[in-house]
Each structure stands twice: as structure tokens, then as C-alpha cells.
């Protein structure tokens, strides 16, 4: 703000300096020509300085026409950042499994990883530029105008460059996602084209589930199990063509695949806020699951009216619930757990082994399920357990996911196509885009700060 006030006073100073030179008794023509020049400059800069809000409103209006929206820009870039970083994590985790199969591929993969990281840096650069311009457009343009207002055109080129930089990037930078789509659409797509599906996982009561595995089944293909990120966030990479097919999302724990609210739907139709065609955010609600942690899942059917509390510590699980029909509680535990006692409202139900319904194998971990009938009403269940060993509670699934994604047929030329189309996309498109915007900035600054001016006065 003070920049504008400084600019205004500087224009008044420039004006009076021009008048002074006009009034000088020295008849040198070169010096005298500065008089009208300074007066012209003062009027021009005073007009710009007082109309800056008009200019920025016009820039907003132009941006609306062109379809540049800062909100979508930031969300798309953040989504792309998440996509890239997930790809990097997945590729680095695959390289260790695949290098056992194909020796020497780790060199290629690490080179690919370097490029992926560079493209991540360019994405971060675009994000930072976006933040700088979005929050600083007024400061930058006022500073530019203040520089333009300095007498004798000392800083005029610099000021006009700053002003046009702020305005051009304010209008043009949010167009970057569309630009990179334009660049990438004619490129050949391979079967390795991946899409990212992510979202929060919660149970049917609305509590978020912090731990577990998510799998997506499309037709006969099952992508998973993908371990949840910390704080209950599911992130799954699937081949992009699965986005347009009927898919079911399962919560894959403790030998069972629990149904979720996403059952036999086309994924691209349920994505929330679709900013980018490779990224899809969903909201996953697991039916019937009360609790899961480290190989122990508690499942109830039919669902109770109310669950007041689920408390799990290292020796027992306490569940307080109310149900109006007779319901069945299922405890699925891997063999590392041993259920010692079950209490229903402080009465022991006897030897838990008589409740053991069946055994199962969850990928490479064995376990069993106990079913406990609960009569209707308000009950407090206490399940005492004993952890025999804390190893082998969850299966090792690296060869299933993400290893299986890349183990489909990968002809080498398709791999190179994939690398080129996705990895180099950010690098080349951000460089081209920024240089386009910079040359527009240069043109606008020549217009604003050019030395050939319309003469207002003789």
C-alpha cells in the first residue's frame, strides 16, 4: 500500500522536475527535451498508479474469460504432487522386488527415479510461483509502479517489467494444467497408464479407520492389498482403464474382504472434485466393521443401533453397544493373537474356543474367526487376549501390490513411452509454459515502459 503512495508522490516530483527543466535558462536542446518528457511520464504514471484496482479487476475479468481459476490450479497441482510422490514411492519399492527377478534393472529404475524427482521439483516450482503470484500480485504491481515513477526514467524498464510480470502471471499461470493436458494428449498412451485413487476410510459409524488394507476389484482383476497410509488415508494406483469399468472397493483385512459403500460402480462417476483425469478422490465407508488393528478385526452383523465406545489396549478390548435385535459379533484374529476370555456384561462366556467358527489363510498369514452371539439390549463386552508374538501379524504383500501392477506385459518400447509421456511431461511443459509467459511479460513491459510515447505536449 505504501508503494502506491510513494509512487504518487514520486509522480508529482517528476512533474515538478520537468517543469523546473522547462524553466531553466540553459538553452541546450538535449537538456530541454527532458522537460516535456518528464511531464508526460508523470501523467502516465499517475494514471496507472490511481487505476491499479481497475487494472487488477480487468485482469480478473480476462482470467474468467480464459477460464483460469486459482482454486482449481492449486488443487490440481497439489493432486499432481501427491500423484508424483506416490509414483516415486511405488517405483522405489518395486525396484527392490523386481531387481531380484531382472538383475541390472535397478540402474534403469534409479535413473527413472531421478527424473521423477526432477519432475517433482518442477511441480513444486509451479506451486511456489502460484503462491507467490496469488498472494503477492498487489505488492508486486505496486512496487513496479513505484519503480516506474522514479524521475528521469531510471527504473522505468524494471518497474514496467515487474508490473507486467505480476499481471501476466496472475492471468496466465492458472492455465498451466490445461496447457500440460494440451501438450500430453497427442502423446501415445501405454497400458502402463496409471491413475491414483485416494480417500479417507471410515467405518459405518463414521469413525476413521487408521490401519488396514484396501483392494479394488475390477472384473476378475484384483488390485491390492494396498496398505493404508497413516491416519487412515487410502492411496491406490490402478491402471487408468479401470477407472471406466465397474469396480468394487474392499477392505481387505484378517482373512476377509469387507464390503464398502463403493460396490460395482464406475469409479470415475463417484470421484469427488475431479481436477485431473488421473486423480480420483473417494470416500470409503466399510460396512459392518467396528475396529481393526494389526491383524485383529472386529465385525458385527446386523449393525447395532449405537456403539458408545470401543477401547483397545494391550490386554483387552472393551466394547459398549446397544442393539435392538439379536446380533452376532465376529472377531477375526491372526494366529499371533490368542483370545483368552470373553465377558458379556461382566459374566464370563466360558472357553472362547467353543466360539471359534472357522479358520482362514490371509495371503500368507493364518488366523481364525470367533463368532459371539449378543442378545438385544445394552451390553458391555470385554474380550481379553494375549499377543503371542508381534511378528507375522500382517502379510507381506509387496509382490501382490504394487509389484503386480508392473508385472503385466511390459514391452520395452512401451516402458520408454510411459516414461516419456508421464515423467518428462512436467519438466518440459513447465519450462515451455514459463518461457511463454515470460515473453508475453516482455512484450507488455515494452508497451508500458517503451521510449516511444505519444507526445501530449510540444
Amino acid at each position, binding site marked *: 500500500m505504501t508503494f502506491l*503512495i*510513494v509512487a504518487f508522490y514520486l509522480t508529482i516530483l517528476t512533474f515538478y522536475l520537468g517543469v523546473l527543466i522547462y*524553466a531553466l535558462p540553459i538553452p541546450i536542446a538535449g537538456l530541454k527535451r527532458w522537460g516535456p518528457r518528464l511531464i508526460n511520464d508523470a501523467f502516465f504514471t499517475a494514471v496507472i498508479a490511481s487505476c491499479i*484496482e*481497475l487494472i487488477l479487476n480487468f485482469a480478473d475479468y480476462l482470467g474468467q474469460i480464459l477460464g483460469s481459476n486459482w482454486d482449481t*490450479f492449486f488443487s490440481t497441482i497439489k493432486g499432481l504432487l501427491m500423484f508424483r510422490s506416490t509414483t516415486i514411492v511405488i517405483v522405489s519399492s518395486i525396484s527392490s522386488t523386481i531387481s531380484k527377478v531382472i538383475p541390472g534393472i535397478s540402474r534403469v529404475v534409479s535413473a527413472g527415479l531421478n527424473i521423477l524427482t526432477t519432475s517433482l521439483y518442477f511441480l513444486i516450482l509451479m506451486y511456489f510461483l502460484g503462491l507467490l503470484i496469488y498472494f503477492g500480485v498487489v505488492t508486486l504491481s505496486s512496487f513496479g509502479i513505484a519503480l516506474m515513477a522514479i524521475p528521469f526514467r531510471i527504473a522505468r524498464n524494471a518497474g514496467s517489467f515487474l508490473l507486467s510480470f505480476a499481471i501476466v502471471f496472475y492471468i496466465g499461470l492458472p492455465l498451466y494444467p490445461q496447457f500440460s493436458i494440451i501438450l500430453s494428449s497427442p502423446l501415445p498412451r501405454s497400458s502402463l497408464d496409471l491413475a491414483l485413487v485416494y480417500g479417507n476410510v471410515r467405518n459405518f459409524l463414521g469413525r476413521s479407520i487408521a490401519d488396514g488394507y484396501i483392494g479394488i476389484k475390477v472384473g476378475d482383476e484384483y488390485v491390492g492389498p494396498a496398505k493404508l497410509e497413516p491416519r487412515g488415508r487410502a492411496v491406490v494406483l490402478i491402471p487408468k482403464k479401470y477407472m471406466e469399468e465397474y469396480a468394487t472397493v474392499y477392505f481387505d483385512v484378517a482373512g476377509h474382504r469387507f464390503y464398502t459403500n463403493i460396490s460395482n460402480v464406475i469409479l470415475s462417476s463417484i470421484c469427488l472434485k475431479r481436477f485431473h483425469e488421473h486423480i480420483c478422490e473417494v470416500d470409503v465407508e466399510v460396512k459392518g466393521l467396528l475396529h481393526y488393528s494389526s491383524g485383529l478385526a472386529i465385525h458385527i452383523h446386523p449393525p447395532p443401533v449405537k456403539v458408545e465406545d470401543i477401547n483397545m489396549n494391550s490386554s483387552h478390548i472393551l466394547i459398549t453397544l446397544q442393539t435392538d435385535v439379536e446380533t452376532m459379533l465376529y472377531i477375526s484374529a491372526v494366529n499371533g493373537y490368542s483370545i483368552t476370555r470373553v465377558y458379556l456384561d461382566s459374566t464370563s462366556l466360558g472357553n472362547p474356543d467353543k466360539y471359534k467358527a472357522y479358520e482362514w489363510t490371509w495371503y500368507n498369514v493364518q488366523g481364525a474367526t470367533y463368532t459371539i452371539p449378543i442378545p438385544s439390549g445394552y451390553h458391555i463386552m470385554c474380550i481379553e487376549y494375549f499377543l503371542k508374538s508381534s511378528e507375522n501379524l500382517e502379510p507381506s504383500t509387496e509382490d501382490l501390490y504394487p509389484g503386480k501392477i508392473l508385472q503385466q506385459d511390459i514391452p520395452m518400447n512401451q516402458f520408454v513411452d510411459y516414461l516419456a509421456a508421464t515423467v518428462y511431461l512436467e519438466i518440459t511443459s513447465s519450462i515451455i509454459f514459463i518461457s511463454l509467459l515470460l515473453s508475453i511479460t516482455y512484450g507488455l513491459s515494452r508497451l508500458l515502459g517503451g521510449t516511444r510515447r505519444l507526445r501530449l505536449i510540444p
Partner: protein
Amino acid sequence: MDVIALVKDLINKIVIVAWLLFLLTWIIGWAIKGSPIPSSKIRRVGQGLIEDAVWGAFWVAIGTSIFWLISYISIALGNSLPQPPVPQLP
């Protein structure tokens, strides 16, 4: 704030100097124009000095009015000494 005070101070000084200079240049210009020097080129220098002095006096006199006009137009178009637009967090 120091910059603004400095600039305001400079403006005041320059206005005073400009008025005095206008008077001085006008006198010198008439002196040269009316002098008995035979070369007409030199007398044209005097003519130029008189013209520029008068233009200078004109601009000093109406300078403030023009700046007032510019800020009046910009207020009429909807901005005062501009409020920066507050960006919403994405």
C-alpha cells in the same frame, strides 16, 4: 515514511525554485531577445527561452489541477487510493 517525507520536502523546494527560475529565465530571454546583437540565431535563442519559461509557468500553475483531475476520475471509476484486494486461501 521517510521516503515520503523526503519526497514531499523535495517537491516543495522544487516548486519554489521553479517559480523563481521561471522569472529569471523570462527576464534573461527578453534581455537576449531585445539585445542589439546582430546575429538573429542568438535572438531566436532568447525567443525559445521566453516560450519555455511561459510554458513552465503554465504547467506549474495548473499542475495541481491536473493531478486532482486524475484522482477525481479514478475515484469516480470506483477506486480511492486503492485498497488491495484480499485473496482467499485456496
